[in-house]
């Protein structure tokens, strides 16, 4: 059962960079700071490419929403094995306000347009940590969802997804078309090999505007302030368990 996989890839500040809050508290410093593909998105791309390599899917399309620099992120997905890319152009204030709701509307529109059988995204992005886009996309499309996937296999006309949940692991079977969100243990993403980096240069990236997809981008959220977390307070050492219980009682915790 061959089909198209749509993979969402997000350009985020590199995980190793020390984040600095802007003095005006409207956000974090992004100018001149190293960006890369969200690690969970890398895992999503890897899974999509593996499905195509096993001939369970026909084509992998990498999608990114944002300014011109997102094309670099798409190019990385192409170097990992995606077949083509779609860059949804969003810049300026629209980009600053871009959140899971708008992105899921875009992904849903593209999934319909490209007649995708599967949408895979990372479970969350390491900047927003929202963990909403996959779920919202499934809801907008009225498709089943397998989130926090640590294993995905094709089962007839559906998918078997092993989900990582607080209590352990949950196995679900969902019919296709479906949405899956990738968790950490789903796979180990491959390195982009040099020949694949060269091949990626020839693969196509189409540009499209959200308006072309019938999506309007006004945000229903307003960011009030962005602040550093409070400085970590030092702890107190106690001599015995009795002392600990007394301290906890006194502070009202017990």
């Amino acid at each position, binding site marked *: 059962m061959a089909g198209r996989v749509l993979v969402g890839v997000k350009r985020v500040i590199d995980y190793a960079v020390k984040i600095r809050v802007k003095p005006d508290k409207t956000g974090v410093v992004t100018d001149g700071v190293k960006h890369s593909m969200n690690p969970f998105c890398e895992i999503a791309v890897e899974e999509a490419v593996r499905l195509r390599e096993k001939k369970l899917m026909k084509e992998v399309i990498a999608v990114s929403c944002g300014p011109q620099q997102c094309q670099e992120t798409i190019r990385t997905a192409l170097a990992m094995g995606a077949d083509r890319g779609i860059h949804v152009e969003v810049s300026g204030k629209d980009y600053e306000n871009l959140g899971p709701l708008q992105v899921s509307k875009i992904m849903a529109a593209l999934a319909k347009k490209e007649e995708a059988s599967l949408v895979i995204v990372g479970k969350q992005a390491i900047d927003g940590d929202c963990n909403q886009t996959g779920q919202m996309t499934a809801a907008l499309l009225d498709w089943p969802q397998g989130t926090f996937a640590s294993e995905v296999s094709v089962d007839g006309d559906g998918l078997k997804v092993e989900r990582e949940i607080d209590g352990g692991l949950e196995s679900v079977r969902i019919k296709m078309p479906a949405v899956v969100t990738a968790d950490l243990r789903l796979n180990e993403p491959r390195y982009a090999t*040099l020949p694949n980096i060269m091949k990626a240069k020839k693969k196509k990236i189409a540009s499209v505007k959200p308006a072309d997809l019938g999506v309007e981008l006004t945000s229903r959220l307003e960011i009030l302030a962005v602040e550093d977390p409070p400085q970590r307070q030092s702890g107190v050492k106690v001599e015995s368990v009795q002392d600990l219980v007394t301290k906890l009682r006194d502070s009202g915790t017990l």
Partner: protein
Amino acid sequence: MAALLLCARKALLPGSLRRLHTVYQMAELPETHEMLRQTCRDFADRELCPIAAQLDKEHRYPAEQVRKMGAMGLMAVEVPEQFGGAGLDYLAYAIGVEEISRGCASTGVVMSVNNSLYLGPVLKFGSEEQKQQWITPFTTGEKVGCFALSEPGNGSDAGAASTVARLEGDHWVLNGTKAWITNSWDASATVVFATTDKALKHKVTVPPQHTHTGGPGQEDCRGNLLGQPGMGFKIAMQTLDSGRVGIAAQALGIAQAALDCAVDYAEKRTAFGAPISKLQGIQFKLADMALALEGARLLTWRAAMLKDNGKPYTKEAAMAKLAASEAATLISHQAIQVLGGMGYVTDMPAERHYRDARITEIYEGTSEIQRLVIANQVLKDYRC
């Protein structure tokens, strides 16, 4: 929570080691090279950094890592795709070697020797048949090659090589001893330089018999001729030109690793009530180190780009190698100084960077030889 899991997953040096992440460092490179730099850096961080100290301690050849690098195309960067290579240019190769060497200098030189000194001459001077036989199996990382010019009796004095070659039927038979041959223990083939008489030099490719002193001692080895008889010296010199850019890149990687180590330590170590990075004495050192590194890097990239454009690059390659190797020694020397006592002990990588850096001023043309090459070219330039 996501960040914590990622730190564990990425299994890197504790996230504390500061690495240069600013965009300006990379803004000048074309996108392909930028992606290549990133993939090599990721590989080095994940696969080489964690084991580099151990490899050094055990004097171990990184066979598994070399295989993985082969799978990525790093062992045959410039080799055309038809022979199994990555089909990229020399600038890409220089960037790759630098990033790999930053993770592990020894792995970096394995990569450099296989690419520049072994595949280089075979690709340039080999017949179609020789290319099929001696290139393709050496692109995957399963087999590596080496380059045997130096002997116990001559290093800088390449012309005094005493390994002899005589024609027997349709094969050349070699007799002599080579020494100081990088990769020789693990190599499956060698480009060997030998003479039929002192006036001429021949070169042959031959499966080597290994000795344990890093020198294939060849007694009556059989081999195939590469190029034409008498071309040996020319082949050696041209190969060394490109090899120099590779070693310059390796030195850059070592230098960068040493600088990273010094900056990270200076930001954390407190003395006289503040991190030592606040002291002008330390700041001046770091500035000089960074300057030496950037200068050498630009020289290396320029030499690589000249080669890619088919222009003569002998002077520029010598300048790159000289600048990069002297920068590496300077930077790793000062890094030890910044680390103080910690720089001297094996707990920190500074002393390993120093040892790794030191040899770059010696092999593939000593700094003195580089100066002769540069002076020669400079005088030529003025005499035209």
